[in-house]
């Protein structure tokens, strides 16, 4: 990488120790932007987590934090604008157009690209959701800039560059990635990887509206239906406060019931490690880990999961990790807080019973009714 170093740091911007020279036309790219993900009237919570990160980066750089809201005219879009301020944005860029009702790549890519080219942010953050990844890839390619996926750490270097850290080689190592000579520096972050910041009562501030010169006829893709996962199978695992998950140690698909019983008893959600998805025992929406969901519950109970690094990176944010495994040398005991060397198949029912007994009596009264 030595070839990229530049010996004559530009004295502008007061960025000490500049290692590379940003081309002249990128010098006026300033401020930090967070894309507010709005789908079916709801702001995805990852947007708030990103505003928390964005605030920190903007303060370090001494610049402003902006939320970007793209949506149809109406209450839900204005709600997203208000939420951006409540999570401490200094201003909001807003494109309101009815063809932005459902997410489609074409109008969203054009709207976001137009905004970037007009108002020139130095950093642009998006959630690594299906929507965010679809959009980020197109926008970065259109702008021919760098995009770092699934970051687990974002920082500002001494020279003001974004240092984006992400897992590599399936999570066994971390790497820090820079975007050189291009702006904006783009990054995506998966839901729940960053802490949820405090919501304030900050009122709506400066909103900059921008037009989108596009009409419905120009858009090839039409949304003709939406099949909701429904309440029962709507695995909102990433945001559950209590999660129990099973791995190969459960031995057989029917033993998943033991897991679900425990989850039900303590009011938690359930998931699994990757092998169970590969075996077809559980749908992919319930996979926890590097290629599945990242979780950040208050309590995580891993039953029969060995704790490969791919799984570890998805659960490390949990406040308390309990591991149940027959193998005392399983890697999961290296990062769990409490360990039990036991067979999950026989231990889960015992644990469920104890929870039933110990949880407050009003619980049982409700069950009786």
């Amino acid at each position, binding site marked *: 990488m030595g070839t990229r170093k530049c010996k004559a740091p530009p004295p502008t911007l007061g960025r000490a120790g500049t290692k590379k020279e940003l081309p002249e036309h990128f010098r006026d790219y300033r401020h930090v932007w967070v894309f507010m993900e709005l789908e079916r009237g709801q702001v995805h919570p990852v947007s708030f987590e990103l505003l928390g990160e964005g605030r920190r980066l903007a303060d370090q750089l001494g610049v402003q934090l902006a939320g970007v809201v793209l949506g149809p005219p109406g209450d839900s879009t204005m709600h997203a604008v208000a939420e951006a301020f409540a999570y401490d944005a200094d201003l909001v860029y807003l494109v309101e157009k009815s063809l932005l009702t459902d997410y489609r790549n074409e109008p969203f890519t054009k709207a976001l690209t137009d905004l970037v080219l007009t108002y020139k942010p130095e950093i642009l953050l998006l959630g690594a959701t299906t929507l965010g990844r679809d959009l980020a*890839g*197109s926008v970065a390619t259109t702008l021919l800039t760098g995009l770092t996926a699934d970051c687990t750490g974002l920082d500002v270097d001494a020279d003001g560059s974004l240092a984006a850290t992400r897992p590599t080689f399936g999570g066994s190592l971390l790497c820090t990635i820079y975007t050189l000579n291009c702006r904006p520096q783009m990054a995506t972050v998966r839901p729940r990887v960053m802490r949820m910041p405090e919501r304030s009562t900050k009122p709506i501030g400066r909103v900059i509206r921008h037009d989108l010169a596009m009409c419905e006829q120009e858009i090839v893709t039409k949304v003709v239906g939406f*099949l909701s996962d429904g309440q029962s199978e709507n695995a909102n695992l990433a945001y559950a406060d209590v999660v129990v998950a099973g791995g190969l140690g459960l031995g057989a698909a029917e033993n998943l019931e033991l897991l679900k019983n425990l989850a039900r008893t303590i009011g938690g959600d359930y998931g699994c490690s990757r092998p169970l998805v590969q075996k077809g025992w559980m749908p992919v929406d319930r996979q926890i880990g590097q290629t599945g969901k990242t979780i950040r519950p208050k309590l995580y109970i891993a039953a029969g999961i060995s704790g490969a690094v791919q799984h570890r990176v998805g659960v490390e944010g949990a406040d308390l990790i309990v591991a149940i495994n027959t193998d005392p040398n399983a890697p999961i005991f290296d990062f769990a807080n409490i360990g039990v060397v036991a067979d999950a198949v026989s231990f889960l029912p015992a644990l469920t019973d104890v929870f039933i007994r110990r949880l407050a009596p009003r619980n049982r009264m409700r069950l009786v009714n």
Partner: protein
Amino acid sequence: MHIVVCMKQVPDSAQIRVHPVTNTIMRQGVPTIINPYDLFALEEALKVRDYYGGEVTVLTMGPPMAEEALRKALTYGADRAILLTDRHFAGSDTLATSFALSQAISKIGNSFGTPDIVFTGKQTIDGDTAQVGPGIAKRLNLVQLTYIAKITSIDLGARTITVERRSEGGTHVLNSALPCLITMLESTTAIRRGSLDDALRAARSQIVKWNAAEAGIEDITKCGLRGSPTVVKRVFAPTPRAQKASQIDTTEKAERDVADELVVSIFAHQPALRHELSSTGSA
């Protein structure tokens, strides 16, 4: 119809180990596989070809040894395999990779017929970025359809396609048009077992190898390290937790008592849970 499937040969990440002392990847002896997500894309492509007729071309960019992955794809029934290999591609990030692949796909179009659909897996298991598919779509001006769970129908006459796309909390049904780029989700349908004919054909086939110039790439500065806006500055091992798990002693104890000790320990670590679990417990 003509279908191009982009694949990647990746190290089998389940078998990657980090050296405990030097914190470097121990690459030796790590087997390579076709990126598992790409196999779902290949299977879908073969299904579409079998139903609508046409050809499937598989394309990969990588070192010469990636030929192995392509030959494997031929045994599954792909019609043609092209390996894009050139030392100028070394160090490519997703932007440079999507540039090289899109140039090669244009060349494939000129040589063997313009593709109606380009498939990729939803992401690779080594990079995990899911960025190369959208990058190719943008550069080739193809309709971008990511995270596709199902192709419901294709109308070759009208040049339309209906798909189901996974999104947060549900599935969108989309009507769109050919040519398009589809990144395919994992599904329960595993890759087929190729026929004996396919195996024999694969063994005899010449894998077409293109360097940058042969793929029609004129501007080499858009490839490899030089064409990559992102650079990896530092690789390091995650900080291990200071302490190992505190183990509940299980010797000569009934499971019930061990479970009881565990619950006490959970509440000792996180007293708030006592209330929170009980208040939601009957849900």
